[in-house]
């Protein structure tokens, strides 16, 4: 068989194998234990194996100074840090502090936005995991009407 054709077929088989890898490999299973944790430090340990984060000025955490409605608080996280693997948000005073975790490959930009619930005024921490370590930025968000429905 012509060498080029052999290489093409090998490449084709590798491609198909790669494409059939389960999606779950990117992020793994839903991190139940971390989401059920009632203490911010424990949630971080459950998710990352450590509760230590390095504050970084390269993380821009967008959140309102005052959230009128704790049921819908817009939050954005952007960073110039390199090699970002995930961006998570921890709301210190929520009954379960770990709120959301974005996990993504290198071609996805480390710039995400979402809307979260906050039970009461609290520090909101953006946690950025890179291949160099775990970094964070924190902002206090005041909440006038709590959003957990209790």
């Amino acid at each position: 068989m012509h060498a080029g054709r052999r290489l093409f077929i090998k490449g084709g088989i590798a491609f198909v194998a790669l494409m059939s890898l389960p999606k779950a490999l990117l992020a793994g299973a839903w991190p139940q234990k971390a989401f059920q944790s009632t203490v911010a430090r424990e949630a971080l340990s459950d998710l990352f194996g450590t509760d230590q984060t390095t504050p970084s000025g390269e993380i821009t955490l967008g959140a309102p100074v005052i959230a009128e409605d704790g049921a819908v608080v817009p939050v954005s996280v952007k960073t110039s840090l390199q090699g970002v693997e995930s961006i998570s948000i921890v709301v210190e005073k929520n009954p379960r502090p770990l709120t959301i975790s974005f996990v993504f490959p290198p071609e996805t930009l480390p710039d995400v936005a979402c809307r979260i619930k906050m039970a009461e005024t609290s520090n909101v921490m953006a946690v950025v995991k890179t291949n160099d370590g775990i970094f964070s930025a924190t902002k206090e968000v005041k909440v006038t009407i709590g959003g957990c429905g209790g």
Partner: protein
Amino acid sequence: MASNIKLKVKLKGEVAEVKSLMLHPMETGARKDPDSEDIVPAHHITQLTFTHNGKPVMVVNCSTAVAKDPFFSFSFKGASPGDKLTVSWVDNKGESDSIEKVLG
């Protein structure tokens, strides 16, 4: 059945800016029904996956504290017109929904 997911993508060169809004009650499991006084059971999206031509470009793991009718936005590189973007979610009751869009 029509999907309850809206997916918007803007192509800026090879960067795709993605915005998605989906209907879901995102019940925390802590709220009391005002009429029956019973606790409304938790019902929330757990994991969402966005794929670009079959490859995951974003996975979002959610707690009950993601707001009702979740909204997400993010961007990824390497996109071209004609590419396929999908978003799918599963929730704690095993329900799911998904939608596919062709970029361009």
